[in-house]
């Protein structure tokens, strides 16, 4: 079996408040293998960063911003959503496996939703890893 790879979470610091969920290594305590990097706004996340995380060996990337319509900086979450969907330049490269990218739009109190989605996503990408290693 392949080595268990990490999932990187790029999250807006005003979205789901997950400070209580992560340990001092920026890892989600209840979902080991999900690591968190915070941004002032999800609009700052470049598709390029998602690609680079994958290239550096991440099993998958979770992008998390605030509820659509409620960006503190007005429209950052809409921007990154449109960029991921390819509706606004710059977009994701074609080579990036879309199944390994998940975008969540959660307001401050929704840390439970974040945790459950992160766990589910983690198991999905781990399964993908196993399938792909079998294929060779």
């Amino acid at each position, binding site marked *: 079996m392949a080595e268990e790879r990490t999932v990187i979470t790029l999250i807006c610091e005003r979205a789901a408040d997950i400070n209580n969920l992560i340990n001092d290594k920026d890892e989600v305590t209840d979902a080991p293998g999900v690591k968190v990097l915070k941004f002032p706004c999800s609009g700052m996340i470049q598709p390029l960063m998602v690609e680079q995380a994958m290239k550096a060996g991440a099993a998958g990337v979770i992008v998390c911003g605030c509820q659509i319509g409620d960006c503190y900086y007005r429209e950052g979450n809409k921007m990154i959503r449109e960029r991921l969907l390819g509706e606004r330049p710059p977009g994701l490269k074609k080579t990036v496996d879309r199944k390994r990218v998940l975008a969540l739009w959660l307001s401050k*109190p929704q840390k439970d939703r974040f945790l459950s989605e992160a766990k589910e996503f983690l198991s999905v990408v781990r399964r993908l890893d196993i399938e792909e290693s079998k294929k060779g």
Partner: protein
Amino acid sequence: MQEKMEKSNIFHTLFLEPEKLINKVVTSKYNPLYYHGALPQFIMYVLFLSGLLLFAYYVPTVDNAYFSKNLINAFTSVDYITNTIPFGAVVRAMHRYAGDAMVIAILLHMVRVWFTDRFRQYRWVQWLSGVVLLLMVMFIGQTGYYLIWDERSLLLTRMTVSAFEAVPVIGEPLKHWFLNGRNITNLTLSNYLFIHIGLSFSLLFALWIHYVRMTRPVITPPPALNYLLVALILVAVYLFPITETKMADLNLQPTNMEIDWFFLWPYWVLSSAGAGGYWFWITVLLAVLCLIPLPMFYGSKAVEAAEVVTNKCTGCRLCSLDCPYQAIEMVPAPAGSRFKLLATVKAYRCSGCGVCVGACAFDAIDLPDLPDAQVNLKIKELLEAK
């Protein structure tokens, strides 16, 4: 820090919980709390339309001598609208309650903007123009009550005159401007009508200033919310129908009136505090509203504006298009550059949100606090740490 905690606790029960609930039931698409700025804008259209219908039949005079047999004046024309024109009473009531709804929506907007901390630093222009807009809406609403020309209108007129007279030096001219002469005449009501309608259209100008630093302002709520809003106004029309009032009589001195608490509360202040007290409290209130965005109250550090990496910028304009605060301007590139344009950041408008970083495919713009290179380094560190 302690104070901030308290504010966030109140915010939690006042906004976050209802917000969460509404999101669960109708999703963020139809959450009115996410359209708090667009709601007053829509109500303004309702007011413009219903106002236009009323304007078609309104006669702005105290006494019209040309129709000597039947008295045609402001009051009787309003009466005609109410009793004779089809749906006149309903349109009148809609105009009135849409006005009240406007005040409620503006207050909601204001309170939410305050609690979510979206009013200061790079947004002070929006806050101050918002205070001006609120002031204009209040005055427009009050002139609406003068226009009916019933006993309440007369009382309000006289109270306003007494308040103006108490102002030193310019009191007398203010009174003459307000009455359009020394006494209440036909010209007084045409002045009221001019203020009511003219100031309403000036709202559009003030709104332009309100929006000028924002790219793509959200000004239209989804249709479903608009229907609900109009339905609410219509329910108010049924629950609080227009009632009969008495025509103003210049020889009488009415003393009591029903107060519309959304628009006419300043008159309550005026009657309980006197003219001097009235101006004192109104000035204090306005000063507080205007001083709220002063940075010294919050002890926050200045925004670290985004910085363009001059030799990487290709002048593609994506960052300037995506900037939510119009803080990036494209200027002609310096001589010798391969490109035509160069992005420049207007630091005083920048919020430091980093949307421009997300928009740049060339790593040519950076937040000083968190440059691109550092983000990629952190990602690598996270992946390597076991």
